[in-house]
């Protein structure tokens, strides 16, 4: 038996365990009206308090596992969104929160808008709603974690395909 493999397997398991138990999220507004951002704040602050589940908002993308992105991507925000995404360490996951992040919403076709988030970066979980309720956002994160747990092997470094993403239904 290869001792190196045993060691890396064990390490991967520890990493997965840590990631599942405490995903760190960075929040990015790529052109949202702020409605979704306020729901994300409600999710993080004591009313819903996801930190008790280990989900922590992390200021720097360099320390984050999950990018929670809201709003359509404006022409001006496109480069910044890409930069934030590229600064995140692998493996990284993206949750698109709100109708605009999914399709561009009411801003689709506007002169200053590129479109939805998956036109710019790959998205793992879509949370629809305008804005989605905090329960829906939490459900989105849980679905993402479930997906990670379901994956037997740790995620390959390649970017996830958006077509495999799960859609979370808004309970509201």
């Amino acid at each position, binding site marked *: 038996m290869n001792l190196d493999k045993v060691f890396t397997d064990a390490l991967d398991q520890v990493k997965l365990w840590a990631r599942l138990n405490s995903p760190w999220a960075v929040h990015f507004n790529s052109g949202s009206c702020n409605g979704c951002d306020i729901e994300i704040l409600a999710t993080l602050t004591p009313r819903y308090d996801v930190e008790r589940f280990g989900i922590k908002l992390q200021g720097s993308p360099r320390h984050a596992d999950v990018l929670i992105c809201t709003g359509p991507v404006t022409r*001006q925000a496109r480069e910044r969104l890409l930069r934030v995404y590229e600064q995140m360490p692998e493996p990284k996951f993206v949750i698109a929160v709100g109708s605009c992040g999914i399709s*561009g919403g009411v801003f*689709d*076709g506007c002169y*200053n808008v590129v*479109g939805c988030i998956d036109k710019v970066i790959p998205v793992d979980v879509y949370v629809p709603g305008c804005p989605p309720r905090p329960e829906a956002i939490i459900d989105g994160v849980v679905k993402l974690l479930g997906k990670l747990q379901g994956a037997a092997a740790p995620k390959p470094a390649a970017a996830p395909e958006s077509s495999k993403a799960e859609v979370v239904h808004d309970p509201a």
Partner: protein
Amino acid sequence: MTPLDPNQVKERSEALLQSAKTVLGSWAAAIAAPAPNRIDVTLTPDDLERAVSTLVTARWGYLAAITGLDIGVTSGMLEVLYHFCSDAVIVTLRVQIPRENPAVPSICDKIPYADLYERELMEMFGITVTNTPSPTRLFVAEDWPEGVFPLRKDAPVQEPTIRA
């Protein structure tokens, strides 16, 4: 505090409207009243600076906004609206300029905070604001093409991307 007497409010508004008319009377090509408490004063671009000066020196209200208006390709004109507010009264100075080489003078020497409005006017409508202190781009995206003005009626329309 005693509640405002509606009659007094009305009197005050009418006095304000009257004073605006008196101040602007000599420059106005036409004065319209589109709504109660509101007058639209049509000016030529040459009279704009002097009209704004008289409003400022008379201390009549404050500049609330500058609006650009594309009144259609066929008309061959663009319009710039300077909204001044005092109390419940709004006085709008309307200036029509040709679509070809549209230009209005800057009013930043009289009202410094008009700077942002004028920059937006330049970027969104392609109107040259002569002598504005900072004519560089501010609002449109860095990769926005030169010579395309998004709020003009003939601006190219971006097709929606909604998937079936």
